């Protein structure tokens, strides 16, 4: 699975993009976040405030209960501030 990090997610996790092998038991965005948080203090910090996490799976903005699988492109970012 390819994971992209934008804005403060990139800064706190200290990675812009990575390929990960998913451990067993990860089926949706919620469980993916739980696992990522456990990887390091930086990741834990990035994902601490769940209300401010936005997620896209294969470039579609989705909810946390969306299913994810190997081969997906998942992106984490804060609420948008364009325009």
């Amino acid at each position: 699975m390819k994971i992209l990090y934008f804005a403060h997610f990139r800064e706190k996790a200290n990675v812009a993009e990575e390929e990960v092998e998913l451990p067993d038991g990860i089926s949706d965005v919620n469980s993916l976040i739980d696992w990522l948080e456990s990887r390091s203090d930086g990741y834990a910090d990035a994902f601490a405030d769940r209300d401010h996490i936005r997620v896209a799976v294969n470039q579609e903005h989705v909810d946390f209960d969306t299913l994810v699988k190997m081969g997906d492109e998942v992106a984490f970012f804060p609420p948008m501030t364009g325009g």
Partner: protein
Amino acid sequence: MTIRVQSQDFDAGAEIAKISATNTNVGGVCSFIGVVRESADTISAMTLEHYPGMTEKLLAKIEAEAQERWPLEDSLIIHRYGRMEPGEQIVLVVTASAHRKAAFEACEFLIDWLKTKAPFWKSEETAEGTKWVEAKASDDQAADKWSEK
């Protein structure tokens, strides 16, 4: 029906003139230019980051939605990314229609949408260093008013 996501500046006047000359069904052309403003914290610059690929896809989708909801003869969205200083242009939205109300509504819809739903993130350089701009509730409310029942 044009979308451009780019780091370089644009000539808003020339772009608006092009849309305005689309065809003789055009009765009104509405445009909005977003500019980097010097705020209370006296920003020296801001940097816009985006999600390449997803940005273009979403912009095309929202432009198609605007075309469906209003009888537009033409439209244009240009959104920049990268570092910009106060006074620099960030975004341009232009809509052309037979009637002014459609042009105004579609233009405001597109910019409200860009503020809250397009994958761009701003960071500001302030006296205390660089910080990410927080999303504003007022922008969400502006975007929500266009939600279809």
